[in-house]
């Protein structure tokens, strides 16, 4: 008998054994140091995955111990050091179909529509505690059934999160990941599910890693650009707002546009050119662009302003630019904008107002304060474009299911536009950030608090604004532009003077315009827009 038994597993790792003070903090892609010393190679980032697999194997063994023991005897196992592969191979070799790992409460539906549409959603029954039925229906894994199954699991997972049962949520996430391997993740429900599973995974497993901006402002700007190019939503927003601003500026010689989120200033070249071609000549155009401060010492706002100035010069439009750097919109104060009483002001907010709806125990949401001073600027027009969705509900489950539906449509529409790679993926990442924020964040960190037009209408009217009809021209031109820039399936709709752009029957983005409603006790006048009495400070 050999002294050390079967030496099949002898490695020479002793000579490379790390010191007993091996750092316990390893980068995710590195092997866990302590496990490596014990002879097991697992990447830190895989630890959780392996743990989940072990747990599932545990369940398998409890339910069918003989199967696994048989497998263990007969199978060829390649490298037991590689824990991740070993547990995976054990799992896949066991004779289970995913359906055997059902959780109580998930009801398998019998739908045959491949993608969730409005009709499918309405028919999904509420989650109940009934035991799973009809395992056999899911044994042949069909794309459609897996898709529906994924949706069911997603909703069940969200429900567990809402209840605080993170252990169950974690298990469901694992099941979903496994199911994902059997569906097409390039499009449809597979794609969307992947993103939502990731977001849930973050919320459940690594909540500390989720910040409110989910990445640098610079990264965000880059992704924004790809999103802008890959689908028509932002173009629609810009075009519709510009049209309304153009009309509002009619007859004014000094105009001032305040852009709540300059980004790359993509909206403004078109307006500058339209103003240049205005009968009677262009006005003096001032543009104030608000954006986050640049971390690396660059003044990116100014750079964009310079480029726009260059364009304005080339079409003979007198132009002045001012950048206002603020990390949060609510930090912007009216005096920073230096509005002059002589100018016609347009306030332009493309998907910014919803960020002001967050609140916590220390402060109320700043939306009312903001709307208040916007009104006090006495703008000729306020253009508002917002996601047409209800992602600000207090209950997590409701919010989650809303978002699932909303972003499913958005991803489908993105697919239809046929953008090339990697542009499409980068555009998706832009959307993914929104999804993560909606799903993972709470309190002030959750900035993507989308609300539907009907709620904004109420809010804005309460704040002293009245709606401005966008006009049939805007509608016709939007429809025409869509045929040029997008694909079959997009739909522009007009609703009480506002325009929405959506995918099939689901509006996804809503554009509206507002003017100031004169209040009875208003102290604001044409010459005193801030309503300040006895001011002595310069306010130009």
């Amino acid at each position, binding site marked *: 008998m050999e002294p*050390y038994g079967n*030496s099949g597993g*002898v490695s020479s790792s002793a000579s490379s*054994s790390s*010191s007993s003070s091996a750092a*316990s903090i390893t980068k995710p892609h590195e092997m866990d140091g302590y496990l490596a010393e*014990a*002879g097991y190679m697992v990447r830190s980032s895989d630890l959780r995955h392996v743990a989940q697999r072990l747990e599932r194997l545990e369940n398998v063994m409890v339910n069918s111990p003989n199967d696994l023991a048989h497998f263990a005897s007969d199978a060829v196992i390649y490298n*037991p050091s590689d824990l991740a592969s070993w547990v995976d191979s054990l799992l896949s070799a066991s004779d289970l179909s995913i359906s055997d790992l059902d959780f109580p409460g998930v009801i398998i539906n019998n739908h045959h529509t491949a993608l969730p549409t409005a009709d499918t959603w309405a028919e999904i029954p509420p989650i109940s505690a009934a035991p*799973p039925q009809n395992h056999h229906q899911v044994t042949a894994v069909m794309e459609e059934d897996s898709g529906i199954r994924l949706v069911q699991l997603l909703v069940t997972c969200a429900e567990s999160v809402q209840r605080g049962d993170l252990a169950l949520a974690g298990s469901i996430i694992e099941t979903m990941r496994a199911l994902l391997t059997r569906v097409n993740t390039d499009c449809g429900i597979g794609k969307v599910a992947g993103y939502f599973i990731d977001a849930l995974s973050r919320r459940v497993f690594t909540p500390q890693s989720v910040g409110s901006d989910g990445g640098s402002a610079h990264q965000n700007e880059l992704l924004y650009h790809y999103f802008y190019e890959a689908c028509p939503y932002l173009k629609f927003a810009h075009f519709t707002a510009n049209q309304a601003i153009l009309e509002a500026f009619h007859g004014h010689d000094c105009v001032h546009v305040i852009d709540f989120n300059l980004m790359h200033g993509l909206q403004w070249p078109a307006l500058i050119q339209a103003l240049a071609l205005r009968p009677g000549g262009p006005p003096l155009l001032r543009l104030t662009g608000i954006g986050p401060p640049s971390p690396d010492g660059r003044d990116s706002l100014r750079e964009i302003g310079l480029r726009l100035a260059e364009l304005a010069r080339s079409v003979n439009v007198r132009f002045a630019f001012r950048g206002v750097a603020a990390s949060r919109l609510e930090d912007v104060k009216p005096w920073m904008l230096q509005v002059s009483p002589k100018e016609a002001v347009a306030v332009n907010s493309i998907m910014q107002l919803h960020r002001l709806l967050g609140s916590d125990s220390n402060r109320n949401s700043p939306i009312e304060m903001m709307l208040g001073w916007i009104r006090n600027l006495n703008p000729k027009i306020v253009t508002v474009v917002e996601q047409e969705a209800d992602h600000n509900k207090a209950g997590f489950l409701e919010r989650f299911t809303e978002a699932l539906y909303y972003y499913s449509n958005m991803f489908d529409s993105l697919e239809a536009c046929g953008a090339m790679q990697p542009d499409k993926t980068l555009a998706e990442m832009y959307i993914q950030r929104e999804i993560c924020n909606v799903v993972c964040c709470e309190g002030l960190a959750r900035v993507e608090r989308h609300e539907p037009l009907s709620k904004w209408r109420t809010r804005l009217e309460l704040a002293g604004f009245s709606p401005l009809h966008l006009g049939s021209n805007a509608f016709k031109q939007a429809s025409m532009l869509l045929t040029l820039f997008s694909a079959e399936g997009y739909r522009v709709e007009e609703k009480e003077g506002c325009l929405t752009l959506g995918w099939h029957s689901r509006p996804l983005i809503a554009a509206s315009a507002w003017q100031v409603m004169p209040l009875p006790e208003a102290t604001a006048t044409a010459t005193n827009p801030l309503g300040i009495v006895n001011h002595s400070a310069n306010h130009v």
Partner: protein
Amino acid sequence: MEDNNEVNEVDLTDSKMVVPLNTWVLISNFKLSYNLLRRPDGTFNRHLAEFLDRKVAPNANPVDGVLSFDVIIDKGTSLLTRIYQPASADAPQPNILDFHKPVGVEVLPVIIFFHGGSFAHSSANSGIYDILCRRLVGNCKAVVVSVNYRRAPENRFPCAYDDGWTALKWVNSRSWLKSTKDSKVHIYLAGDSSGGNIVHNVALRAAESGIEVLGNILLNPMFGGLERTESEERLDGKYFVTIQDRDWYWRAFLPEGEDRDHPACNPFGPRGIRLKDVKFPKSLVVVAGLDLVQDWQLAYAKGLEKAGQDVKLLFLDKATIGFYLLPNNDHFYTVMNEISSFVRSDC
């Protein structure tokens, strides 16, 4: 038609919440693979076990101040030990003759180590035990002799004890392991799980034969008995271990037909050996608060105490089995310090 629609689910929440993730993965993996190896008929899948066990070679070049080499100490049974010695990195490459030069330290603790594995699993060259022995050397400035004892179910009681005894005699007679202060080998016995059980039994034999053992270190020692204790019932299945697997291992180790009140399993039970007035070494008994056999371990410590023996009990509230395998928790360091003090008390 299934008459039971429920899926039995194992609740692993308890174990997951008390250990770091990498520890959880390591011990769960052991649990899983061990489940695969034990057959209901009492046989053991030794081939698969050897394949799955992560083993490391010895290394005569010092790594982090420790070098190791293997020695066959009994040709009859092919009994192997792995010896770990403190060494400095800049010492010249040792050759085979150097290994038998006296270590030359005034007081040199020599720890004879018996690895765990419930009498059936692991070896002296298992990765987890190789690294543990290296840590012991570094920590205690001792020589560690890890014994590759014969395992169950192929080799039942008393093979493991016989091998331990052989190792003790061998270590005791190595002139190069003598402390220069008194020209004697300063021997300590240490072991975890089944190794802890072996420590007790080898110490018993040493006491009867007049070989001096200076101290016993028992880490989560494996003891049991016929009766089901409160801790066994309370913790069954909660922290990686089940009563069922414990029973399997006793059935594999104890002589056929014997029950768990056999003195090897239950030293202070109805068939236990009286220790009063026996010159038994001082003992350090480490009990993990989440180990389901803790009641037996506590009873062991109590038994020693009642027999007038010197025993120190270290009860680690929230420790699970295997906490000492990875140095990523406080208990690990607490225990290392205790062991170090224990073996260096006369240095």
